C-alpha cells in the first residue's frame, strides 16, 4: 500500500437510493457502461461545498488540528494543508488569513479558522489536481 500511487475504494450503490454527495459531483450511471466520466461545473456543487454539514464538519476538523499548534505565526502561514494546495505567494495566504481572523476574539478564532479551512476546500487548486 505504501508504494501504491493510487487506491480504489469499492462500496455498494443502491440504484434507488443514490448518495447525494456523489451524484452532485458526477457519479457515473451504474446501469450502463460509461467510456468517459462526465465532469461538470454546476451551482449545486458549489452549494455543497458552501453549506453541506459534512463539509463544514471537515472544516472544523482541520481547524482543530491547526489550533493545536502553539505558534500563532505558524498558524497564520501554515494551516496544516500541503503547500501545493495553498497559493504559493505568502502575500496571498497572509492576506487571506488576516481577512478572516481580523477582529476575531479568542473564542471565535476556531470558527474563523474553520471558515478559512472551508475556503481552502473550495479552491480550484484543491479541486483540480495538476
Amino acid at each position, binding site marked *: 500500500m505504501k508504494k501504491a500511487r493510487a487506491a480504489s475504494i469499492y462500496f455498494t450503490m443502491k440504484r434507488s437510493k443514490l448518495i447525494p454527495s456523489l451524484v452532485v459531483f458526477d457519479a457515473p450511471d451504474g446501469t450502463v457502461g460509461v467510456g468517459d466520466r462526465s465532469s461538470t461545473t454546476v451551482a449545486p456543487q458549489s452549494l455543497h461545498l*458552501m453549506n453541506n454539514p459534512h463539509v463544514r464538519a471537515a472544516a472544523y476538523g482541520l481547524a482543530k488540528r491547526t489550533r493545536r499548534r502553539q505558534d500563532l505565526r505558524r498558524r497564520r502561514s501554515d494551516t496544516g494543508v500541503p503547500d501545493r494546495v495553498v497559493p504559493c505567494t505568502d502575500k496571498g495566504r497572509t492576506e487571506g488569513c488576516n*481577512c478572516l481572523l481580523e477582529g476575531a476574539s479568542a473564542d471565535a478564532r476556531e470558527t474563523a479558522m474553520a471558515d478559512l479551512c472551508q475556503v481552502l476546500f473550495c479552491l480550484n487548486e484543491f479541486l*483540480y489536481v495538476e
Partner: protein
Amino acid sequence: MNGGPSQVDTWDYKPELEKRDGQELKGLDPNTGFFNQQVGPLMKSPFKFAKHGQCGKMVSDLFPHMAKHVDKMAFIHSLWSDSNNHSPALFKMNTGLARMGYPCVGSWVTYGLGSESRSLPAFCVMYDTLGRGIPKGHSLNWSAGFLPTVYQGTAFKPQGEPIDNLTRPKDITEERQRSQLDLLAKLNKHAMEKHPDEPDWLARVESYELAYRMQMAAPDALDLSKETEETKKLYGLDNPKATHFAKQCLIARRLVEKGCPLRANLFRRHGKRSELGRTQQHREESRRLRGGNRSAHRGAPRRPSAEGFAR
C-alpha cells in the same frame, strides 16, 4: 415521458394504422428488436380521436381538457427515433444522437442564448418524484457533452428539497459567508494567473457566485404556497394522482417567470406496451391510461383564466 404512453395513443393520430388494424406488417423482420418471433399484427389505438379547436388538431380522448386548448399549443410532429431501447432513444430525443456524450438541447440553447436570470441556473431538470427512478441514462440526458461544463443541466432532486444545501448552516451568517466567497475569489484569482485559459476554472469561480445568489432566489421560485388556490387547482395539485406532475409543471412555470429559459421535465412511466402486438401488458397499460393513472393529463397545465394568470 420515459416509458410513457405512445404518441399514437395521445397526439399523433394514425389513420393508416386504423385501416390496417389486424394486418401483418409487410417486410417486417420477425427477429427485430426484443420480441423475436413474438411480434403480432398491426394494432390501432384503443382510444378515440377527434378534431378540436380551430386548427382541427386530432387529439385522443385521453386528454379531454387539454384538447380544448389546442389552438394555444404548438405540436412538433417531425420527431423520430432509430432506437427502440430506453437509453439510446432518450439520448436521441435529448441530444439528437442515440449514443451518449453529445450535448443535449438544453445545453445548446443556453450556450447560444444565455439566460435572463443571474440568480438561477439557466437550464434546470426535473424528473420523476414518485421514486420510480432517474430516466434511463441518468445525467447523460442533460449533459453538456463537449460544450463547456457550465452548460450542464442542473437537476432538481425528485424528493425532499429540490436543491440540496440551499440553506446556509446556522453557524455561518450571511456576512461571514460573503467574506469567505470574497477571499475565495481573491485566492482563485492568484491561482488563475497560472491557468489563464482554463474555462473550467473560471466557470467554477462563477458558480460560487451563482450559488450565493441562488440561496436567496431559489427558495422563492420553488415556494408553491405563494400560488393562489385557483391556480393550484387548475394545475391539478388537488388531485392525488396528478400532484407529482402538477407540482413540477408549476415549478417550471415559476422558473420561466424568473428568467430561467429552459427546463426539462423528464418523467418515468414504464409502460410495457408492444407497438406491434396485442399483449397482456398492453391491456394493462390501456387500463392504467384510461382510469388508473392519468396523471400526465391532469397535471399538465391548463390555461387559467386571464385574471388568474395575470402578473
